[in-house]
């Protein structure tokens, strides 16, 4: 489904938590890309029947990738992962 292209060099591994589950990411990943590589495609719920939304523009303009990091709502596609980061699904922008 998803995953990483192989043979692109080594980057330090970090661990983040999403929805209570731990997963490994690479330093330099955005939250959205770390989650996508782990097959987590639903990042926020829209106000309309809670429909799932995910990465749409991947360049910081659409706000579909909103997640909550340390209690603050941020764009998953512009926020870099940090070791020990706790990420939750976002809501309405």
């Amino acid at each position, binding site marked *: 489904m998803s995953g990483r292209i192989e043979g692109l060099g080594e980057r330090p591994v970090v661990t983040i938590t999403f929805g209570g589950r731990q997963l490994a990411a690479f*330093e330099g990943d955005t939250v959205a890309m770390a989650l996508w590589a782990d097959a987590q495609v639903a990042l926020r719920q829209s106000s309309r029947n809670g429909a799932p939304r995910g990465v*749409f523009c*991947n360049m910081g303009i659409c706000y579909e990738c909103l997640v909550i990091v340390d209690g603050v709502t941020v764009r998953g596609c512009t926020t870099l992962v940090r070791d020990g980061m706790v990420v939750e699904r976002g809501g309405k922008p």
Partner: protein
Amino acid sequence: MNARILEADVGVVGAGPGGMAAARRLAAAGLQVVVLDEGQRAGGQIFRQLPVGASGHDRIAEPPSHEHGHRLIEHFERAGMDRRHGASVWDARPGRLWFEQGGESWLLRCQKIVLAPGAYDRVVPFPGWTLPGVMTAGALQVMVRGFGVVPGRRALVVGSGPLLLPTVASLVSAGVQVVAALEASSRWRALRALPAVIGNGARRREALWYAKKLLLAGVRLRWGWTVFGCEGDGRVQRAVIGKVDRAGRPRRDTARAIDVDVVGAGFGLVPSVELGLHLGCASRHDAARGGHHLVVDDAQRTSVAGVFAAGEICGIGGAEVAMAEGELAAAAVLHELRGAPIDAALRRAVAAERRAADAMLAAFAPMPGLHELASPDTIVCRCEDVTAQRARAAAALHGSSLRAVKMGCRAGMGPCQARICGPSLQAIANARPDEVMDRPIVQVPLKVVRSETIVDAPRD
């Protein structure tokens, strides 16, 4: 209160080809330059780099013509200047740029501003386009070329214009099976781009490189086709595709379903004009150049003194245009600050690149019939969850201008500030076109930043 204030001769927004070309030239002439870019690495959209530590770009779909782009990155990174990545510019005045970097609030005071913020994908709403897994063609490219992440197993690429080719190439390089690649323009309409491609050595080589890449991967570009809708449980699993007529109207009798797990849609690009409009720069609407773009004179000066612009913000034209305009903008800044004459060759280069780009893009001007893809309950504004039906009702009730539609149903009033729905809202709501009233509404903060950033922002 964390007031962080920087002083420089010139502030450049954007480290894509336009911004890099300008900044490098300005720094080489000895000016103090600060470059602000939201991305983590230099290169902009086209020459996007993998994160620090990763390498192997040659394997991720870069045509040979990108080599000079990477040379530009090298020169840019060697030149003496203050390059700031992860820096989002959220407010501006002539001579002042406010930005957030690393969660901190900064102000750059400078004599001149060069705007090179690029463009973003134009997307046309269709049923199911809000499902996870459906994204812009650009988003797929960023995923593959910017992060080395595999988007899925079976991809559908739809849209219109030259950028479908690099999107397909990226997917192929990532090992994704491209089940269908659909160009909405007819082959005959696209033929109008041919002279511009054949007549330009670099463009011709690039087109051939992509053609070979697609051929080897067994991907055939289908002309006059597009996506009618996407379906799936929690993420995209199927797409319905079919033919469109010459205006882009779906021919429902040709519909057929295919299984896919990722969809990239890109119907051209829209200039990122917000900063320029906020600064008060004059703009013009030109469909073939992507819609509203800043108006510049023959030295990349906007209508606001001390503010220059280069690249896609002056109308979609591609990387060659951006680089030529960046060079010219720098020369104009040097003229104003140092009295240096502007080399006429730079002006000629810009004019020639613009002519070639205009000729090519005319063949892919937005097709109005594509707005019929949206059904009444298709969400048009993704931020506020406004459906096509509600947008139409607002147009009927509140007067038919686009601004009235926005006020009436909140479409386009969410945090993306209509960057996504703006280009199609008017057509879908049947709003009356109005050159002045249709200018995008821009609000500070231009990029969503922490509230502390705004509160702590150094005043002047």
